[in-house]
């Protein structure tokens, strides 16, 4: 086990493999093609066999330091070099560096006469010489069955091919043999697939006018492999196979929240906005503001200085910029700063997997934190919904694994089926915002609500969604006895309420004044009564004083009279105290 660290036989348990360096193929095959064994790549004309084989050699020479021999039976070395130059492979340069050897085997039946017994030892010698001269580890034979066209003795050829496969194994080279697809068999001769350790079938299919290349591993001795058909495509970087990324759901999720750029919407989403790396679906009928909402979210992303990649399938960059300016979003600034990148194509421009591959490539290149696809529904026109679904699963899986927030918009054709017609992807969606038309009182208004939002307490309210010249705004809708009101009806209702409130206020004021007045009146009355009372009291006082006075006068006059009569002293001076006078009076 200690020794096992060096060399290809690193893990004694697993079959040693030779990496192809082809995007995605190593993932499906679990590391590459079986090392030191022959692999058959078959398919019909034009499905990319030769290209795959060449890329295997080129990647081997450049990335794995394994020189390769390409034995061509159909094209000359010059033709081959020319054909793959557009893919960025410079075969001549590699040949000059002794990393690649191209050998064109020309077998022309009309130039050959067969007499008696022969074998293919010449081919073996040629190949062996080529392998030895550059120390090749990889060999491609393209397409070996051409021999059957050039030579007549099929029995000999079959026997010799069998020997060739054995010989290749003994040589320890990792070989690719290409084969034309036969009628009902994988190859014309029905031989190669049995003697190869690994068989990969390529297919080029056209459905509803869109062509799709697919790849399938039919057999792989001694190794696990993906058994599905995987779409692949050929572009300027060679071949990319698109595996359905991770089979399990093992993505690490973030609990970071990011703002949508619309404060009210953040509030609705548990007060903090959406999760980073989650998938958000904005669905709605035509003209409900899906793109505007998406652009708003993109804008918010750029404001955080996070790159955002926008896939537009309906609008060009300049149109989007112009349209969004009308709601107060200046996207041109972000384009200039390269925080926002727009990729605008027609959905019908190419097949689904090409779109997906483009997306992969751009995401890898641009490294955005957010990807917007606007809208996803246009894909439905280009393929069946099952394919669209599969593609979206791959897309979302891919984005999730990179913790990129995905914003998808979806056009719903009828408001009634808004919840049901989402290309079956609702289960993949974490947060689903539904935009809808609310038609009432002779006008249409936009309403927004959150259908679902995983992992947060979200609002269940319908909000009115307004596009103003300073961006998107959300307003409470009026909910009253007359139902949900929006737009001018909401405004009217609000005015009515305002008037009623004013009325009530005035009524209250009036009442208050009334009471005040009554109080004043009461107080006035009390004043009058008191005045009356005081007047009576005064009167009484006056009477009393008068009485006293009279009494005094009487007494004085009595005293005076007594004095004048020389009578006894009755009282001590002119005291007003009636008491002492009383006995006197009583005595009198």
């Amino acid at each position, binding site marked *: 086990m200690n020794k096992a660290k060096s060399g290809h036989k690193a893990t004694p348990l697993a079959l040693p493999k030779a990496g192809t360096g082809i995007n995605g193929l190593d993932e499906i095959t679990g590391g590459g093609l079986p090392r030191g064994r022959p692999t058959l790549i078959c398919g019909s004309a034009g499905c990319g066999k030769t290209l795959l084989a060449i890329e295997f050699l080129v990647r081997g020479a450049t990335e794995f330091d394994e020189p390769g021999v390409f034995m061509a039976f159909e094209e000359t070395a010059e033709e081959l070099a020319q054909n793959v130059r557009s893919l960025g492979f410079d075969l001549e340069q590699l040949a000059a560096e002794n990393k690649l050897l191209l050998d064109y085997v020309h077998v022309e039946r009309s*130039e050959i*006469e067969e*007499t*008696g017994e*022969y074998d293919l*030892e*010449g081919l073996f010698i*040629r190949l062996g010489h080529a392998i030895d001269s550059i120390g090749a580890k990889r060999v491609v034979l393209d397409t070996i069955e051409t021999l059957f066209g050039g030579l007549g003795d099929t029995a000999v050829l079959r026997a010799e091919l069998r020997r060739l496969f054995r010989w290749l194994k003994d040589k320890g080279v990792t070989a690719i043999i290409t084969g034309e697809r036969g009628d009902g068999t994988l190859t014309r001769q029905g031989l190669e697939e049995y003697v190869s350790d690994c068989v990969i079938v390529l297919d080029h299919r056209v459905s509803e006018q869109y062509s799709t290349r697919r790849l399938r591993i039919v057999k792989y001795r001694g190794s696990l492999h993906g058994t599905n058909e995987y779409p692949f495509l050929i572009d300027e970087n060679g071949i990319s196979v698109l595996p359905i990324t991770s089979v399990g759901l093992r993505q690490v999720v973030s609990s970071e929240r990011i703002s949508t750029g619309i404060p009210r919407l953040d509030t609705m989403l548990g007060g903090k906005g959406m999760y980073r790396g989650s998938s958000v679906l904005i669905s709605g009928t035509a003209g409900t503001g899906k793109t505007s909402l998406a652009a708003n979210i993109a804008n918010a992303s750029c404001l955080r200085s996070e790159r955002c990649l926008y896939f537009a399938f309906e609008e060009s960059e300049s149109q989007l910029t112009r349209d969004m300016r009308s709601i107060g979003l200046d996207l041109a600034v972000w384009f200039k700063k390269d925080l926002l990148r727009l990729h605008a194509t027609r959905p019908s421009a190419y097949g689904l997997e090409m779109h997906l591959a483009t997306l992969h490539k751009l995401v890898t290149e641009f490294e955005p934190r957010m990807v917007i696809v606007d809208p996803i529904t246009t894909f439905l026109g280009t393929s069946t919904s099952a394919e669209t679904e599969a593609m979206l699963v791959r897309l979302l899986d891919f984005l999730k694994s990179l913790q990129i927030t995905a914003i998808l918009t979806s056009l719903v054709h009828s408001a009634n089926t808004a919840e049901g017609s989402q290309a079956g992807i609702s289960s993949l969606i974490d947060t689903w915002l539904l935009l809808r038309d609310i038609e009432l009182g002779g006008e249409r208004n936009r309403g927004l609500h959150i259908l679902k939002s995983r992992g947060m307490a979200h609002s269940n309210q319908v909000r009115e969604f307004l596009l103003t010249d300073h961006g998107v705004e959300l307003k409470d809708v009026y909910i009253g006895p007359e139902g949900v009101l929006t737009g001018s009806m909401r405004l009217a209702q609000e005015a009515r309420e305002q008037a009623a409130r004013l009325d009530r206020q005035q009524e209250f004021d009036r009442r208050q004044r009334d009471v005040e007045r009554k109080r004043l009146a009461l107080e006035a009355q009390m004043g009058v009564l008191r005045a009356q009372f005081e007047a009576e009291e005064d009167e009484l006082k006056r009477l009393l004083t008068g009485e006293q006075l009279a009494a005094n006068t009487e007494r004085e006059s009595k005293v005076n009279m007594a004095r004048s009569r020389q009578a006894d002293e009755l009282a001590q001076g002119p005291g007003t105290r009636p008491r002492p006078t009383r006995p006197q009076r009583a005595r009198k």
Partner: protein
Amino acid sequence: MKHTPKSPEPLDKLTGPTNFDQWNLRLYVAGKTTKSVAAFENLSKLCEEHLPGKYHIEVVDLLMHPQLAKGDQIVALPTLVRKLPEPIRRVIGDLSNVERTLVGLQLRPLQK
């Protein structure tokens, strides 16, 4: 490994390029197998019979000179290549079928 067999003996009864006076034939083999030995014997016999004195046979053993296989587009062995007269013709096999060999070398017109 060059064999330059003997006997310059004129024979002018054949048509076509047989009038050419220096036939240059190259026989590719891989070691001394039964097939290669048979091919060489068959070829020598045929040349003696039909091209006395006008031929030159060169035997190339690819086990010793593998680089030569590419130049003459050798796939099957043994292969006889008529270098001269032009154009180049190839005959594969052990040359046991004299009739076909003659056709292949254009020593006899095809299908009579």
